């Protein structure tokens, strides 16, 4: 110990960890050897033989191993606190210290359970669950409670009425939760509302280019409302085949549809525009949730996928300043289907 004082802890720590590693390795080896031996000597039991047995292990090496594991767990746990207290503690370091402590604890408990304490195999008898005589006693006690009552039906009916009344009263406050379904038909889109982007900038007809799609929101309205989001695209004239009633809904080939998929309410965010005519089936909107695919040139007709309805279209107009505006509200409900979603449609 003539080394400098600053070197002593290093050597001490080295020695301790070497001893610990040695002891751990020996204990583990012995434990496995013991198990292997046990497996070889055990012989199958004869039918009807009592399998109970109890071995007192009395294994000093296992004691050492468990002690080492527990000390290690304690040190790791303290390390966690130290790491936590240190500024800028990393999530990874916290996990390794706390997880390490728990892992060592687990190892300690399992080694103790398998090699330290008496190993016991025991037999327990199961209860007979149905005991006829006891069952009859219980039935008699219950039935004896109704002795002397003559008008059972009257009482049962009265109790039933009371129960039904109380139950109804108990669920009545649920009605204060609502619902008022009016809002299901509402969107912020009215005639004249300008289409703006997510920064509030109005779209002009010139900005809307063929081959891209744009997300449009209503000016001066809540962008977070379900019906606010629109898909805005421009298609060449030969791609547009709208029903006759919608002929003037797409001025200059600019079309707008609700962005909310009529299948399950996700925002549609995929746009397929043909770049290679021979193999492409045409422009399409696709919802990334369940891949309902709609045709923008055909009034939102469903091309593929699970949606039960076409994509709702919003009629557009272009004002004198070349801004794109809604020409009318949606003619149908946007969003997922429900009982009356097709009202007014033949």
């Amino acid at each position, binding site marked *: 110990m003539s080394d400098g004082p600053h070197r002593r802890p290093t050597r001490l720590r080295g020695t301790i960890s070497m001893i610990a590693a040695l002891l751990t390795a020996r204990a583990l080896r012995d434990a496995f050897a013991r198990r292997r031996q046990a497996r070889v000597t055990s012989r199958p039991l004869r039918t009807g033989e009592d399998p109970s047995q109890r071995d007192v292990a009395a294994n000093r090496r296992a004691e050492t191993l468990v002690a080492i594991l527990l000390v290690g767990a304690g040190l790791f746990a303290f390390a966690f606190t130290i790491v936590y207290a240190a500024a800028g503690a990393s999530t990874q370091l916290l996990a390794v210290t706390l997880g390490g402590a728990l892992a060592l604890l687990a190892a300690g408990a399992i080694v103790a*359970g398998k090699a330290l304490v008496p190993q016991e195999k025991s037999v327990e008898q*199961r209860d007979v669950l149905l005991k006829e005589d006891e069952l009859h006693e219980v039935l008699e006690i219950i039935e004896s409670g109704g002795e002397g009552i003559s008008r059972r039906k009257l009482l049962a009916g009265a109790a039933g009425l009371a129960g039904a009344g109380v139950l109804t009263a108990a669920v009545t406050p649920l009605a204060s939760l609502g619902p008022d379904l009016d809002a299901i038909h509402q969107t912020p889109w009215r005639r004249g509302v300008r289409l703006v982007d997510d920064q509030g900038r109005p779209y002009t007809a010139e900005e809307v280019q063929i081959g891209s799609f744009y997300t449009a929101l209503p000016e001066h309205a809540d962008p977070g409302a379900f019906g606010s989001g629109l898909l805005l695209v421009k298609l060449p004239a030969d791609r547009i085949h709208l029903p006759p009633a919608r002929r003037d809904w797409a001025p200059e080939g600019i079309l707008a549809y609700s962005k*909310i998929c009529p299948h399950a309410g996700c925002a549609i965010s995929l746009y397929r525009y043909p770049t290679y005519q021979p193999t492409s089936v045409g422009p399409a909107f696709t919802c990334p*949730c369940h891949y309902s695919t709609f045709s923008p040139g055909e009034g939102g007709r469903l091309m593929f996928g*699970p949606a039960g309805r076409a994509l709702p279209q919003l009629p557009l107009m272009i004002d004198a300043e070349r801004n794109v505006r809604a020409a009318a509200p949606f003619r149908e409900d946007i969003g997922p289907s429900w009982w*009356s979603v097709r009202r007014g449609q033949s």
Partner: protein
Amino acid sequence: MAVRRRHRLQRGMRFSEERLGASRAIKWALRYVFPDHWTFLLGEIALYAFIILVASGIFLTLYYVPSDTQVIYRGPYALLRGEQMSEAYRSVLDLSFNVPAGLLVRQIHHWAADVFVAAIVLHLMRIFFTGAYRKPRDLNYFIGLTMLMLAILEGFAGYSLGDDLLSGMGLAIAYSVALAIPFVGAQLGFLIWGGQFPGSADFLPRLEIVHVLLIPLAFAVLITMHLAMIMRQHHTQFPGPGRRERNVVGTPLWPAYALRSIGLLFAVAAVLVLVGGLIQINPVWQWGPYHPYLSENGAQPDWYIGWLIGALRLMPNFEPTIAGHTLIPNPFWGGLAFPLLVFAMMFAWPAIERRVTGDYRRHDLLDRPRDRPVRTAIGAAFLSWVVIIFAVGSTDRIFVRLHVPYEEQIHFWRVGVWLLPIIVFFATRQICRWLQRTGSHPLRDWEGAVIARRRDGGFEVVADSPQDAGAAEPGPPIGTAPGQESEL
């Protein structure tokens, strides 16, 4: 030393005995016997994951703010600074970036939820394929199934609270499924969300109460019932030497089993802490805040919701109408009818099996799956049906990674989802019969001995393995694995 220790223990026990008189119950509990088989640990893993969930969840509730009030983010995560978002989402970001160990606990909680549901599903598979659900444990099997349903619901509610883009998309789908309930769907959806999606200011507080109080409370009651019932009936056990219908052979709780089980608790905790800190899960700051007009491509839910996504994708656009009314909106099929059918079949199975086999007896010994080829085959076919639909949930990723056209995959699986389970049924039944016939254990070493019947009716061990037996005597060995020599 030993005397003093004994004295102290005595004093403690005396203290509680004078007040509670519980020594008989304590003795019964300490000597309670657990059968030794690794598959019995799956339920314990679920229980321990639940404990971790409660512990980490309590920490999270102290920071989470269930509010949809819109605020501007000014926290340390530069990419979202200046972004408009709900207070709920901001509180999750702050929890992840500002609270020491907050991210660790949040990720532990998320991982624990995934492990929790997985452990329940594996536990359920063990229960099914070994026939452990039969009388007297059918009631407990129903409780377990109920907990599985609640676990899926609880997990979904949990990851929906964050109000990030992914959770908002999930809630939009949930809202659509609610609306898809025939006749009353819209009323129900409006009731839950407090109005048109994305809902009123009441919605997130409601969802939080469901997630942190109502469902956990139901779990506390159901877990207590689950354990109390199994302790009353005792565990099942595989057949083996000395094991009978009327007894249970294994390790008593005290001390060896208790220590091993505590070890398992710590092991589960250790794994969850390590993956929670080292493997990123649900990095909400990457998804960004949710607004109804936004969505993300390639979005995938937590794994236990995958089967519902698959069903929603696989379903053709069938939406029957009646007199201008929409009778069954499409999301009903995949989002509600399919999971309810799966659970209804699992709930009905014990009664169906009793009816078909005419076996109304009590069963405390387990079946080996191969010994019941038809049940095992039905279970495997059913499982494959659900797993295919689960896999369909990732068709978009298969398209992106492997370039198999999405639409062709859907067309293929709309047929395959019915054909493949039939193939699985016949293949499983054949494999079971082959295993039964040969008595082989492809997945494990030989353990046991070859025994021969003597002239006087007794048995003797002739060799330690079939190979030795072949060398020792030419006659065919009678006995096989220990599992088959008990009195069945």
